[in-house]
């Protein structure tokens, strides 16, 4: 009799544990950890643009357009670009494609780290108490990103951006970007698809928010390659020093 009672308690305990596990699984966010590369075009994105083909126009204000045009005129002949000088794309260019290179997402509950292979560009997305106070956030080309989950959708809000006229979605330092990431099924190659929707708001540059959608496809067992880029710059610097010192390069 006593033995039966113990068994009943054990069964009840196991049932509760199972229910808790199911409840936890139902509320846990999806895991985006892995390496992701360019996926199929997002609906409404149109056919892939051929390299060098003109970009569709953006709702850019005249004063902002004048600055962007001045920048384009400056670099048009030489083809100079941030990437050509080993500088990362910056937001939102990093999330909209990062030059066609893959990215790696490393996910943990309080922080998501995104590594873009090109230039080893790095973004940290902080959750809850991991976030820095507004006054402690360092402005930069990728800004400061905080995240939260809305069901299975990761929402990333980015501010503290540097003014950038040197990318497709040029913006002022007051721009804010909201990204929404969600898993979006499997493509015809059997890869998980991660859809990223971007909305950038910048009243100093645009008459309305700018939107862009990008599909990433997971690379099974994928690895990023190292992206060393500044060797030539360093080599030229060493050569200058050697010349100044009147010695041969070691």
């Amino acid at each position, binding site marked *: 009799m006593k033995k039966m009672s113990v068994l009943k308690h054990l069964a009840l305990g196991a049932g509760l544990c199972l229910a808790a596990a199911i409840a936890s699984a139902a509320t846990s966010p999806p895991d985006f950890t892995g390496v992701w590369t360019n996926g199929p075009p997002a609906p409404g994105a149109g056919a892939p643009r*051929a390299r060098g083909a003109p970009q569709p126009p953006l709702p850019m204000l005249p004063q902002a357009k004048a600055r962007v045009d001045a920048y384009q005129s400056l670099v048009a002949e030489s*083809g*100079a*670009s941030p990437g*050509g000088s080993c500088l990362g794309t910056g937001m939102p260019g990093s999330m909209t494609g990062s030059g066609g290179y893959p990215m790696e997402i490393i996910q943990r509950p309080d922080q998501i780290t995104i590594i873009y*292979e090109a230039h080893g560009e790095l973004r940290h997305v902080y959750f809850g108490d991991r976030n820095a106070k507004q006054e402690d956030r360092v402005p930069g080309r990728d800004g400061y990103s905080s995240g939260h989950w809305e069901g299975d959708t990761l929402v990333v809000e980015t501010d503290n951006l540097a003014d950038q006229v040197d990318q497709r979605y040029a913006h002022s330092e007051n721009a804010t970007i909201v990204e929404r990431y969600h898993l979006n099924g499997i493509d015809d190659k059997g890869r998980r698809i991660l859809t990223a929707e971007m909305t950038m708001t910048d009243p100093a540059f645009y008459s309305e928010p700018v939107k862009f959608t990008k599909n990433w496809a997971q690379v099974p067992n994928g690895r990023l390659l190292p992206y060393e880029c500044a*060797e*030539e710059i360093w080599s030229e610097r060493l050569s200058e020093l050697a010349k100044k010192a009147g010695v041969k390069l070691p």
Partner: protein
Amino acid sequence: MKLNTLIASTALLFGLACSSAQAHHSAVQYDFSKQSAVTGVVKEFSAKNPHLLITLEVTNDKGPHLVQFEGHSLNNMYRDGYRKGMVNIGDKVTVNTAPLKSGVEGGYVVSVVTAKNEFFGMRSTSAQDAAKAQAAAEGKK
């Protein structure tokens, strides 16, 4: 004859000395809807980011002269089959390039056929595919 050789050598060296100044720019000056294959002897080769750099000694109706090319990054070429040691100074190689829009010799290397007849790089670009499709469609009219 010796003078000619000296002039040619000097020109080659001058070309090499000038070549690094052209490094590090984007691909806007290339026509990716076209493809041009150029064969030459490797005088300078650097597989790196953001762009591969290769200087070939090309012999054509202008005589032997240096032509500099840039191309996809080391990372992209690595994913498309390039491995260290496949291209060496002195090798005779063929580079498949998107030519310069300006018409000047040179271009953006999308693939290479090595001295050992190995291939690395992209088979074509999306712009070339689009141009071929358009040409095929026009041919059917």
